[in-house]
């Protein structure tokens, strides 16, 4: 071995690397360390330098000479499109190395390629020696996150354009098979059919399936009920004849124009033979225009009936979907859904207050669980309760009965508007959850003092309470009293922390993810149970311990994290991880619902692309980090 000879090669290599980022900014000592530990390898044209089948990435490659083609593996389609060419000075694959897993991107030499290769151990050592390099790698990973979001947007963009533009043909707008009847059908049959199928209109067709008339809900009143027409008459006698038709190829604009010109609410789409193919309503067109947030809010606030609110709730879904397609983050969407759901709920409460006299009583409507945390997704059931103040003049039994009646109506209306009744009966109409402030305080105190399993479970639902309507200061008082209790009972927080550690992130020792937790759904991960909940549980303990009033997980992490001296970057990483899991849930639920299934939270890691898998893994690591902090704080 000769020092001067090595020195010559090393300094020539340093000079070479200095021409490329991040080596141009790298600390001299770190760069020397890098160069002293690389080996130079050669790959002939066509050779696979790094690919998934080679197993866990063991070296960092830096191209010295030649071109390398990076082709994302797995995943769907346009791989050709997304292939990238790397040239001298560029490194790969930092992502696979950092994650210590195989690279699913295949790196292939496009010509004779020389690469400097740094073994994984030295790579990690380098990230510690060089802040510049460390930053480079971190930003690279962050870049992957951006890419992933871009991919998400791309994935939805096509659908979005299909859905949103007024240029879409009617064939794209009409979704369900039209329901039509023959002219000789009795009015009774038609009305029964409309009621059972929730139809706003009925088309009457002749034997050739060509529409000859239309009958709508509003006609029932004007043409049947008021004139007292017999239900046994034929529909032909009351229908509006010669309905407006448009060919399937006409677009939404045409339909809107036709409706405006003729002051009608429905247009029939027909094929070339004039046969009925679908009904386009004014509502369908409104959805296309993607009724903005303000319109929706306005329509909710001014809604005079549950029916209108039911539609508004559907608009909320539609709009949040649009947001998903536009690449809005998980946090914003869940908060958006929560906010509008709040508005719907408030309006339902207001409508019911007209029928229930609660005047003179101080009370507040509370939401619990995910609603309490402002973290609702597409599928969400009701979690609510009532708190009220009992004065000496009031009879407790009587007052509670009034509230329960009121609550039952609200719960039912919420159910009609798409917030299914809670299976666990966590609803204001449950006498156990319709309590005076003192009773709530007493109940919370009992859970805190005797943290048995059920009490801890309750804490995870009810301690995330948030006032939605009424006297908000009641909720504030309840929160202060909760803090007093938790501060006075350190054992409770310790038990709650232990409870939060009950589920570990599904990271495997050998495989990336543990997917066998649910024997009925092998290959899946419940990202709510094994992902999101880990964050919310940890954030709850942090918040209660630091008397942070927020219930939202991100707010809790931000505010409690600051008090706990968690570094800003670490905090941001945790929040990013949490939001990514939420985004996965939203996307998954959306797909499930589109395919007519109840939205669950079961994600198949195998079906994610490489970047998403990597971020998912990182998100779980962040959960593990939060859990580690709990272990440290409570010596568990």
């Amino acid at each position, binding site marked *: *071995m000769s020092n001067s*000879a090595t020195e010559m090669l090393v300094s020539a*290599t340093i000079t070479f690397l200095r021409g490329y980022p991040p080596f141009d900014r790298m600390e001299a000592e770190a760069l020397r360390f890098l160069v*002293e530990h*690389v080996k*130079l390898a*050669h790959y002939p044209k066509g*050779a696979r330098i790094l690919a998934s089948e080679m197993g866990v990435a063991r070296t960092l490659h830096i191209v010295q000479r030649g071109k390398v083609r990076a082709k994302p593996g797995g995943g769907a389609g346009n791989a050709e499109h997304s292939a990238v060419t790397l040239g001298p000075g560029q490194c790969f694959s930092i992502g696979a190395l950092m994650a210590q897993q195989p690279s699913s991107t295949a790196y292939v030499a496009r010509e*004779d390629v020389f690469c400097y290769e740094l073994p994984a151990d030295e790579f990690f050592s380098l990230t510690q020696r060089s802040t510049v390099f460390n930053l480079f790698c971190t930003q690279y990973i962050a870049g992957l996150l951006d890419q992933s979001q871009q991919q998400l947007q791309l994935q939805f963009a096509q659908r979005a354009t299909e859905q949103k533009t007024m240029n879409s043909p009617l064939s794209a707008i009409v979704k369900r098979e039209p329901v039509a009847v023959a002219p000789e059908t009795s009015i009774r049959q038609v009305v029964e059919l409309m009621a059972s199928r929730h139809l706003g209109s009925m088309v009457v067709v002749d034997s050739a399936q060509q529409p000859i008339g239309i009958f709508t809900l509003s006609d029932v009143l004007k043409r049947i009920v008021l004139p007292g027409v017999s239900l046994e008459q034929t529909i032909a006698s009351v229908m509006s004849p010669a309905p407006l038709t448009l060919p399937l190829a006409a677009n939404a604009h045409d339909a809107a124009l036709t409706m405006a010109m003729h002051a009608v609410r429905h247009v029939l789409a027909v094929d070339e033979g004039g046969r009925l193919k679908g009904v386009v309503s004014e509502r369908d067109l409104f959805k296309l225009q993607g009724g903005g947030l303000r319109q929706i809010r306005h329509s909710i606030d001014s809604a005079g009936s549950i029916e209108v609110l039911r539609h508004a709730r559907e608009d909320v879904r539609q709009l949040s979907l649009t947001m998903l397609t536009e690449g809005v983050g998980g946090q914003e969407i869940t908060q958006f859904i929560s906010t509008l759901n709040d508005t719907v709920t408030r309006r339902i409460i207001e409508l019911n207050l007209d029928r229930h006299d609660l005047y003179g009583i101080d009370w507040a409507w509370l939401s619990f669980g995910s609603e309490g945390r402002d973290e609702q997704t597409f599928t969400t059931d009701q979690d609510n309760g009532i708190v009220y103040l009992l004065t000496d003049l009031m009879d407790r039994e009587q007052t509670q009965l009034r509230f329960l009646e009121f609550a039952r109506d609200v719960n039912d209306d919420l159910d009609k508007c798409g917030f299914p009744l809670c299976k666990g009966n966590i609803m204001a109409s449950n006498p156990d959850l319709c309590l005076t402030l003192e009773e709530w305080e007493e109940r919370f105190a009992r859970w805190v003092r005797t943290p048995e399993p059920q009490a801890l479970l309750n804490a995870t639902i009810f301690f995330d309470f948030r006032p939605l309507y009424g006297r908000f200061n009641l909720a504030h008082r309840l929160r202060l009293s909760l803090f007093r209790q938790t501060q006075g009972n350190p054992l409770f927080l310790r038990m709650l922390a232990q409870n939060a550690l009950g589920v570990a992130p599904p990271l495997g020792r050998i495989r990336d993810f543990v997917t066998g937790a649910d024997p009925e759904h092998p290959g899946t991960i419940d990202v709510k149970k094994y992902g999101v909940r880990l964050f919310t549980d940890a954030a709850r303990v942090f918040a209660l311990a630091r008397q942070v009033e927020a219930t939202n997980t991100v707010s809790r992490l931000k505010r409690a994290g600051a008090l706990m001296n968690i570094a800003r970057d670490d905090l941001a990483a945790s929040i990013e991880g949490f939001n990514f899991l939420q985004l996965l849930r939203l996307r998954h639920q959306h797909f499930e619902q589109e395919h007519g299934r109840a939205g669950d939270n079961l994600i198949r890691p195998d079906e994610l692309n490489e970047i998403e898998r990597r971020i998912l893994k990182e998100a779980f690591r962040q959960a593990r980090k939060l859990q580690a902090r709990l272990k440290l704080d409570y010596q568990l």
Partner: protein
Amino acid sequence: MAWYSRLFTAQEGRKPGLTTSQQQSIDAWHELPAADLRRSHYRTRYVVVDVETTVIGGDADRLVSLGALAVVDGLIDFKDVFQACLANESADGEAASDGRPQIETARIAAVDAMLAFLRFAGKAPLISFHASFAAQQVDRAMGECLGVALRQPWIDLAWVMSDLFRDVGDDSQGGLDGWLAHFDIESIKRHDVVSDAYATAKLLQITIARAARKGFDSPSSLLDLEKARRHLHQSG
């Protein structure tokens, strides 16, 4: 040939004037097992050699400096490099500062250098561009300084490459410079022994990749290839 006859004496007897530790180093080298030339290129340690000589011409040429670089399992490691200066051309005639005749100082330096090279090379197959010239220079110095004859084979990249890369046109006629230009390999400092050995080592990497693809996957297969090529060339 005078140097050739010395080989036999070197093998049997011992070179006088060597210290015990120097002799032990030589003995240790003799003890090394021969490299298995049938193993894959990618499980072989090749030593790429480049020499610099005085430019008198003919047999009178003497080794001035020696550069070598190992290609282990197909990889170049900057720490696995060798360089030695055997003579200082500029100082001939004058006495060295310690009073000993300059020629004696040079001899001691040369002995140390060749011993170091022996340790570096071990019994690995040796690679050079125009190997017969390098082999001649190295063998003579080995014999003169240490009384040792290297037993491992030399592989001549010039012959091997001209066979493996028959598709390459004019560049193949341009010697080392031609090949470097063809494969776009930069020299750090052309005609420096280490730099040239490094460039040659990269050519070796390209060569073994091509050879492996054509089924010549071991050092011995490269030797066969070279032999066949020489034969063809000489008879044709």
